Structure formats: C-alpha cells, structure tokens
C-alpha cells in the first residue's frame, strides 16, 4: 500500500513495461483461434445458390444524393426483374460509408469478414473506391465499380479482381468530346473544370481529343469544389475568346450554378459550349430545361437515346420516382445490376475470379449504355454520345446527336506509354 503511493510513476511505468513485454511474448507464441477467418466466407456459397452482394455507398453526408441514386439504380433492377436469375438468388446488403475512406474500408471488412459476401459493389468516390478495391483484391473478393470515374482504378492501380461496370473513366468519356469539337470546325477552346483529380482527368481527356484533331486549347481554368458563384469564371471564358468552351462539373449544384451565370451574362447565344456528363445531367435539366434547349454535352449515358433497354429503364424509374428521369448515377447502379444478371443468366452462379472473368469476357450488346465490352484492365469499352438538350413528351432530355463507338481508356495511346505518364494535374494535361 505504502510503496504503491510513494513511487507511483516509476513503479507504474515499470509495471506497464512488464505488461507490454508479456503482450509481445504472448503474441509471439500463440496464434489465436481466429486464424482461419479469411477462408470462411468463401465456403458455402455454391451450395445455397445465393450470390451475396455487399453494396457500399455514401447515403449520408455531402454525397448523399449521388450515393442514394447509385443504390436506387441497383435496387430498381431487382425490383422490376425479381432477384432470382437462372436459379441464383441475389441478396444485397447495403452499407453507408458517408464518403469517408476509413469508414468505407471498415464496412468492406464487415461485409467480407462478418457477412461473408461474394462480391463488393461500390463505393462512389474515387478515394473510397481505390481503398476498397485494394482491400477486396487482397482477400480475393471481386469489386465492381458502378460510378467511380478515377482513371487509376483501371490503370496504375488496376487489379485482377476490380471491374468498372457502370461508368467510364474521367478522361475516357471526354476524349471524344474534344474530337467532336474539333471536327465541328472549332479551332480554339477554353476549358473550365473542378480543381481535383476528376476535373483534371476530364479536362485532360477533352484537351487531348481536341488537340489530336488539330485544335488548340488556349486557356484552362479551374474552380474549387464548393464554388457557387461562377461569374468570374464565365468572364474569363468570355475574355479568352475561344471558339468553344468545355465545362465539366462532378454533378450536383455547380452545373446549374455555372449555367445561370453563363446565361445571365448573355453568353447563351454567342459562346459555343460543350459540357460533360454530370454538369448537364437530369438535375440541371429539371432546373433549367427551357433555357438551355439545344445545349450540348458529352457522356457515356444518354437518357434520350432511342433503345428498348433505355426506355424500359426510364419508364420503371419514372414509375418509382415521381416521373423523374434517371441520372448517370442511377444508370451506373442499374447497369451493374443488369450486367450481373446477364452474367448469372449465362453462367449460373459464379463467384471470385470466375465472376470477374465472366464479366470481362462478356460483350453486353444491348445495355442501357449501348454495346459495352471490357479491356484487359477491366475497364469498360463502349459508346460515348454527344448529346443535345431537347424536349421529348414534355420532359427535357439529353438526346444523342452523334455516337463514338468502342471508346477505350487509352486516348489513342499505347497502354504502357499512357501509364508511364504522370497523373493528370493542373500542370500536366497529357
């Protein structure tokens, strides 16, 4: 009793050091009983005929709207078509990561180690997607990416078990946009993109496409995420005096905000404009429809395309969601679901590497995106549409006016060469 008090810190430090030593000794000699968890989840799947899917998406936080749409698209397919394909039941567990990579990883671990899922789908944001894909591949679980656009997911950080299923990479989609702009006879261009990886990739794609056809990008501007007043950027675009302006946003408020400034400063009639997928998506069209009739954009998704698959999808979505038309995020979820269904229909229950190769060897002839196949880095190779805002049956939709088939992610380069470049940034645009 007495001794405990008189020399507390020293004595306690000693005791703790002893404890630590004991820990290390313990840890060194006896592996705990839980040494077999990595193999547990992969058993018992063939027997039950169930494909267990873990679906991670940011349902709360800053990206909640996009995240919820991504889940809606996935659920919609199974609600319409039933969750049984060719005797295989598809069971989905949805987890929220709030757009935080650490939470994403914990959720992925929970899904794989506790729930024993066969495949992890999502999440939405580039950094969360890369973190989860690295983890799932390390434990032998396939990862499907319905929305994440990061180039590196299927380039520098590609792995055998990660497949981009419901979108294209940032530079891939916008490369044909540049080619188209140059083909229309525009000689000079100015670009405005968000100042982070997605924006750098989008602008790099456009710039390389434009320059490959002989055009010249005279100025590039970048806006920080969270910008709501675009008037200075619009003035800069006006001052640049280029034949065409290319403007990309990552979706949400910046699209309509930019266009309001653009129209407000009277550029609507005088400045040619090409926007990207997400700047001119349904949210923008619902807000500004009549004012932006005839405006053009470039994307792998076109809700106004004349095809049975798109019509079926749009009608089902409209029925479930108050007559709304689906955005690219919904399409990504739906596309991934229809792809999984198609693969299960052809092969029966496949998991692990077999599921991945079943997808990447498949050619999805009549998907909602058109004819899509996969390259050896598991990225989508498919059509890119130049779209125009038109009114169809009282709704404003993006109708394709030109199609670039079989667009791959290499922007006309050799894969080796493309991956040796630095990653895109303000200072490196390819």
């Amino acid at each position, binding site marked *: 009793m*007495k001794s*405990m*008090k008189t020399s*507390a*810190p020293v004595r*306690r*430090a000693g005791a*703790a050091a002893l*404890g*630590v030593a*004991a*820990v*290390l000794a*313990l*840890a060194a000699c*006896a*592996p*705990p*009983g*839980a*040494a077999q*968890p*990595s193999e547990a989840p992969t058993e018992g799947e063939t027997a039950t005929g169930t494909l267990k899917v873990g679906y991670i998406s940011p*349902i*709360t*936080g800053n990206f909640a709207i996009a995240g919820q749409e991504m889940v809606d698209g996935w659920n919609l397919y199974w609600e319409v078509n039933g969750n049984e394909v060719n005797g295989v039941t598809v069971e989905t567990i949805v*987890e*929220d990561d*709030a*757009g*935080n*990579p*650490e*939470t994403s*990883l*914990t*959720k992925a*671990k*929970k899904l794989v*180690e*506790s729930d024993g899922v066969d495949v992890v789908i999502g999440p939405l944001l*580039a*950094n969360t997607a*890369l*973190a989860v*894909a*690295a*983890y799932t591949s*390390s434990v032998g679980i396939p990862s499907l990416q319905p929305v994440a656009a*990061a180039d*590196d997911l299927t380039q520098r*950080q590609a792995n055998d078990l990660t497949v981009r299923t419901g979108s294209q990479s940032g530079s891939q989609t916008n490369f044909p946009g540049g080619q188209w702009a140059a083909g229309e006879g525009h000689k000079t261009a100015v670009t405005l993109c968000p100042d*982070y*990886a*997605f924006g*750098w990739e989008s602008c790099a794609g456009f710039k390389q496409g434009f320059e490959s056809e002989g055009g010249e990008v005279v100025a590039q501007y970048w806006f920080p995420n969270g910008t709501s007043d675009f008037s200075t950027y619009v003035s800069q675009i006006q001052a640049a005096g280029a034949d065409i302006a290319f403007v990309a946003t990552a979706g949400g408020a910046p699209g309509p905000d930019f266009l309001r400034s653009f129209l407000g400063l009277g550029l609507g009639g005088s400045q040619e404009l090409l926007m990207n997928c997400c700047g001119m998506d349904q949210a923008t069209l619902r807000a500004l429809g009549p004012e932006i009739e005839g405006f053009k954009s470039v994307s792998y998704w076109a809700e106004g395309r004349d095809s049975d698959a798109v019509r079926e999808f749009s009608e089902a979505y409209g029925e479930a969601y108050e007559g709304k038309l689906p955005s690219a995020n919904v399409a990504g979820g739906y596309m991934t679901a229809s792809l999984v269904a198609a693969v299960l229909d052809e092969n029966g229950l496949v998991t692990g590497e077999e599921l991945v190769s079943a997808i990447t060897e498949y050619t999805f002839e009549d998907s909602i995106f058109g004819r899509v196949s996969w390259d050896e880095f598991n990225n989508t190779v498919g059509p890119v549409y130049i779209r125009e805002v038109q009114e169809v049956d009282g709704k404003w939709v993006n109708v394709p006016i030109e199609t670039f088939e079989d667009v791959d992610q290499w922007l006309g380069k050799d894969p080796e060469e493309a991956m040796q470049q*630095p*990653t*895109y*940034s303000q200072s490196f645009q390819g």
Partner: protein
Amino acid sequence: MMLAKLVETRTVRTLGAPRSARTRIITLVSIAVALGIALALPYLGTTAYVISLVTTILIAGLLAASVNFLVGDGGMASLGHAGIAAASAYGAAWASRQGMDPGMQVVFALGTTLVVTFVYGLLSMRTSGIYFLMVTLAVGMVVFGLAYRLSSVTGGENGITGIRRPDFIAEYWTFYYFVLAGFVLGTLLLWVVGRSPFGASLRGIRDSESRMRSLGYSVPSYKLSAFMISGIVAGFAGLLSVWHTHFVSPSAAGVHRSVLLIVMVILGGVGTTFGPLVGAAIVVLVENVLSNSVERWPTVLGLIFILVILFARAGVVGSLQKLFRRWRRRSDGPPGEQDLLENSPTTDSSHTA
C-alpha cells in the same frame, strides 16, 4: 534553458488533491482488468472484423489522447491534429510507394511528423485560445491542401494505396497487439509527462500565462515542447493508421477529422487519461457499427454529443469519476480520512507516512 527550468519546477504543486489509496487501487484494478480483456480479446472467439474495429478504436484513441494532452494540460485546443497524423501517414505511404522497406517508412513518417509538428508549433507557440485554434486550423488546411493538390507526390484526391506494413505484424492479430502496445506506451508517455514538473508548468501556463511569464518561464518554448510531444504521439497514431488501412487520402487530413478528434476528447472527458479512448470508442462505433442499422446515425452522434454537453460536462469518464467520488463520500458516512484528504490538498504528505 529548459533543463534548468525543469529542476526548479520540482517544487511547484498543481497536481490537485491527492487521491486516496482506495481510489488508486480501484483505478489500477480496472486498468488491469481492461488490459486483460484487451489482451485476451483475439482468443475469445472474436472475428477478424471485430479485432480490426478495436484496432481502429485504439488508434483513434491514441490520436485523441495527443489532442487531449494539449487541451487538458496546456489549455490549447488544436483543430489541426488530423493534419499531423496525415503527414506522418503520407511520409510512410510515399516511402512505401518508392519501394522502400518498412524501416524506411518509419524514418520518413518520423521525419514528416517532426517537420510538420515543428511548423505547427512555431506558428502557434505565441498564441493562445481562439488564436491558437485558428492557427492550427490554418496549418491543418495547408496540409490538406498539399495532400489534395500535390498529386505527383500524394496521389491527389485518389490518395496512395497498397502500403505494406512490416512482416512481423502482417497478421491482423499481431498487428492488434502491436497497436495495443503502442497505445499503452503512448498513453503512458503522455501520463508521465503530464505528471512531471514539465506538465505542472504547462498547467500553470494554462491557468495563468502572465503569472508564469512574470515568474520567468519562457511560455512559448513550453508550448512548443508540449506541441512536439503531442505531435510525436499523433504522428505515431498516423503511422499505425496507415499500416492498418494500407491507404491514405486527403480526407485523413481534413477539418472534419480534426473536429471529430475534439469531439472524442470532449465526449470522453477533457484532461482525463482514458477519456479519449472512451470518446474514440463512441465515435468509431457510431460511425461504423450503428450506421449498419440506423440510417440517421450522424444525428445520433450529434444527439449523444449534445446530451453529454448538457448533462455530463466533464465527459463520460470525467463525470463517472465525479459520480464515484460523490458516491464514496456519501457511503462513507461520517467524514473519514479519505474525505479529509480529498478536500485538503495541504495534508498530502501526512497520509503517506
């Protein structure tokens, strides 16, 4: 200069009322029981997921403890500690991406931690209160900005993946023990520093900067040293976290994360030894486990925070301690020896004899 001061301060007593023998034994026993459970955890049939969750809590707890040290003893609330941990993580990640072995990762992590912490300390050592908050927030944002924009080094928003930890802690359970040992050592370090004359002087500065200055203390150098100690613990937590997740991205340095650290500290109890751990456990469990079943989990976290602020100002651990003290006073009936001691700091030396 500092050394001379250390000797002088031995006579300063700001340790508060000495605790009675019984309280001390109860504390020690509960620590031992908690440590015992933590040690046995992997053998109790828990899955790798649960162990990984506990590992997350321990790492967050250690990081929160480094913040708690500054707030509790120094009265300096830092809104930029996530930046320090992230700098360390980026150091290790960059080394790993260059193909260096884990030993070099540690060297780089330590290097970036020291440099970044020193910058934090230099910029903030002459400030206090709200100004300290703003400076740390600003430097934290600089770290975030660098991580976000310097994409050739940091991978930009995509971050750096595939960071490998040393082979001897490659297994999830060996890593768990490693983190547990790191947590115990880190907590012990902060505890010892907090109880040392240096800690006493720091509390003196917290309570009255002008008085300490007039007594001849170099307040800025004390603050800088405190920041360096806290920063090294934070950097260690950052290294552990990058070894745990094999991954780092700018969000690790974001304001959001720094704010959560302050939330952890307040939830657990500012200035308590184990408050940060309890706070970290609450936040991590709400974020990762409650969110499985409750869609509005951020609201739940907010409600918990409000309730703690309203009804348990001293945080979970701090309030429990208070409650325990009150309960003992009542159950002891007539004022006994312990009670006297608790209320009269001056009688300290008498009861040890």
